[in-house]
């Protein structure tokens, strides 16, 4: 047991983290190559921007879902929560006529509060996350209709509002690169989330909870508080998604949102995060979300009939995950 007896640990040559991460892109890259060869319209700047723009909302939602899924939970309410936050922004900006920053803060705060509620129901009342967030999904769906008066709320009186997702700060500086703000926000959210996950106490507890909640509790950690914090953080990110989609549509559409949770969770799982918790990355989720949008866009560009688009998408999602499994196994 002393240094003399403990043998040097013979670690086999490890594939470097960076290379590993690059390989994770392979499914995405394969898709991009296939579509580029199949259609000259695919690799156009405009189309790339369209794909990124189409990824922004689902990407942000998927990042929110990633946090919760790493704890071993699930959040079915991300879609309707996004809508709810958008409607809250609509009420604050259009009905009450308050200035833009107030609306932005209100939307994100609406997310936070909703997350505190689901988190509390899950952590304190011990209701399984699936049920708690299913309930929240319905509650938020109903509330969005109630507070909006079942009508879309338009942001015509808040001129800057469409700029949130549709404007382009980067394009204003570098006209050659008119990347919409929505995409920039997606990447900013991803960076921050990745940082939180890897470098902060919140992130560490997120992984720990998913790994073995009982062990965390017996380590003297306030498990409930951290779990609620994770749901609140995740839901605040849904608030950002709400602002993005409202800005893209220049309106808060109260009926939209249900069904989006499935795409978000799919992106997370395609990205290699395990539904049983304890592991996952924001980068993976981003790739997962991109795979979904590239597929949808590419099949449309190729004018594949819509019923076949669905079949192909289903098949490729399975294959992409299978390829990822093979890759991991071979490492």
């Amino acid at each position, binding site marked *: *047991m002393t240094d003399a*007896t403990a043998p040097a*640990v*013979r670690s086999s040559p490890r594939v470097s983290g960076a290379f590993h991460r690059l390989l994770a892109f392979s499914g995405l890259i394969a898709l991009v190559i296939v579509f580029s060869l199949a259609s000259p319209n695919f690799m156009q700047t405009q189309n790339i921007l369209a794909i990124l723009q189409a990824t922004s909302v689902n990407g942000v939602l998927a990042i929110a879902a990633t946090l919760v899924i790493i704890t071993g939970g699930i959040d079915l309410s991300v879609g309707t929560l996004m809508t709810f936050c958008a409607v809250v922004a609509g009420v604050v900006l259009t009905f009450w006529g308050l200035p833009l920053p107030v609306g932005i803060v209100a939307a994100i705060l609406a997310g936070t509060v909703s997350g505190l509620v689901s988190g509390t129901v899950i952590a304190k009342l011990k209701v399984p996350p699936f049920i708690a967030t299913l309930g929240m999904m319905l509650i938020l769906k109903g509330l969005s209709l109630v507070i909006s008066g079942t009508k879309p709320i338009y942001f015509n009186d808040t001129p800057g509002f469409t700029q949130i997702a549709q404007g382009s700060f980067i394009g204003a500086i570098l006209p050659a690169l008119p990347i919409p703000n929505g995409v920039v926000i997606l990447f900013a959210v991803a960076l921050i989330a990745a940082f939180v996950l890897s470098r902060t*106490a919140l992130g560490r507890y997120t992984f*720990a909870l998913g790994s073995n909640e009982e*062990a965390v509790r017996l380590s003297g950690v306030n498990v409930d508080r951290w779990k609620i914090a994770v749901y609140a953080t995740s839901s605040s990110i849904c608030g950002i998604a709400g602002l993005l989609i409202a800005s893209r549509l220049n309106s808060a559409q109260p009926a939209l949102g249900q069904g989006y949770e499935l795409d978000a969770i799919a992106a997370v799982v395609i990205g290699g995060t395990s539904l049983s918790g304890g592991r996952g990355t924001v980068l993976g989720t981003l790739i997962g979300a991109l795979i979904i949008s590239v597929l949808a866009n590419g099949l449309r560009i190729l004018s594949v009939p819509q019923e076949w688009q669905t079949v192909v998408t289903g098949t490729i999602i399975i294959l992409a995950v299978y390829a990822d499994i093979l890759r991991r196994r071979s490492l």
Partner: protein
Amino acid sequence: MTGIDKSFPGVRALSQARFQLLPGEVHALMGENGAGKSTLMKILSGVYQRDAGTILLDGRPSEIASPREAQDRGIGIIHQELALMRDLTAAQNIFIGREPRRFGILDERALNRDAQAIFDSMNLRLDPTVVVESLTIAKQQMVEIAKALSYRSRVLIMDEPTAALNDAEIAELFAIINRLKAEGVGIVYISHKMDEIKRISDRVTVMRDGEYVGTVPAAETPIETIISMMVGRTLGSETFVVPNTADAPVALEVRNLNRGREIRDVSFSVRQGEILGFAGLMGAGRTEVARAIFGADRRESGEIWVHGKRVGISTPRDAVASGIGYLSEDRKLFGLATGLDVRNNIALPSLERFTGPGGILNDAAMRDAARGYIRQLSIKTPSETQEARLLSGGNQQKVVIAKWLLRDCDILIFDEPTRGIDVGAKTEIYKLLNTLAAQGKAIIVISSELPEVLRLSHRIAVMCEGRLTGFLPGGTSQEEIMRLATQREPSMQVRHAG
């Protein structure tokens, strides 16, 4: 088995390992934690596939591609880590894959009858229809043994079957082993309990770092020789001086603790620098007491005083805040976040210490701290970023110890701290406990191994059926402990001794 190689990502578990088993012999397989014993046996039982080497069964080269094939060839195994289906009953677990049927429909009556027959043959009192999740680890282990016996194998591998058993159960197991031996069954016996090796085995094969060291006859070889084969040097057998802690201040006092039938009016205290051993039979309620003090389970009544102040402990967080650390007896379930790496497991209770402004963690400081303990406790791991679940059992245990050491608790409760830990490491841990006590920490050690309790404790508390039946001085005898451990009513001895 000859020339067996096996590598895992980042680890070379076996290299040119070798093992030979004769019919009707008990062959002990020895080695330090992580020496590769379990891995070698998993290859023999079809769980893992070897990278290289040959396996001969009855002199013929054989491929064992799956657990099924191993069973078909008469190789049975009791795994080190319990492999039970927690939601199924004991009988259902035992006969999984071989359920008795009538007209294609499961015959539960026959199933339970057959299971009961096995339990009877083991002298085990256990209801076959009870769901295994509600059993104690010891009982679960007995179910595993019953399951292995039910296969009627020619070769039976037992990977640390006694880690969770008490002496009476061990005696019963040995009787079973002797019976099997007489029937010509070859038995591979893995254990870290040296006395058992002498008692039960015919030959001993020692492994070190995945390699074969040698095979010796058990009877003629002194324990010291086996140990030095295992660790590659001789261990001094330190004897520990019992320090006088009689006037040291009381660190922890428990008054009139109650919880259903498991804990009945338990009161005791531990002084700074004292090691209080807790002895008792399986199910005596020692773990329950520890968990109740630690706030892991709700208690019905009772007060807890730390350093002369009454503290309200209702969650483990309160306990940790009061300076109490608890090392659980089931590390897989309660001790380790198995998906996290070694570093984060060690730092888990102390994360606040490494948290800077904005909640940002100081990973470098965490790494240094973790490396310190990896060195201090000789935790065998490729690096501090290895996932905890990939460590061998003993090394996982050390990680759990490290996390409480890092948390710097004044009062430490160790529940079966050396379960599944090799001799070398055990000695290390004993030394460690003594050092900690010498530093003034109050320590409670719950152990089902009486020699361990006797060797470590300054004072011994004995429990029976939820009651404290008495306190004994450190140097007492096993007989004295057993007397109290089977005594239903509290003794004359002073209840608030200490």
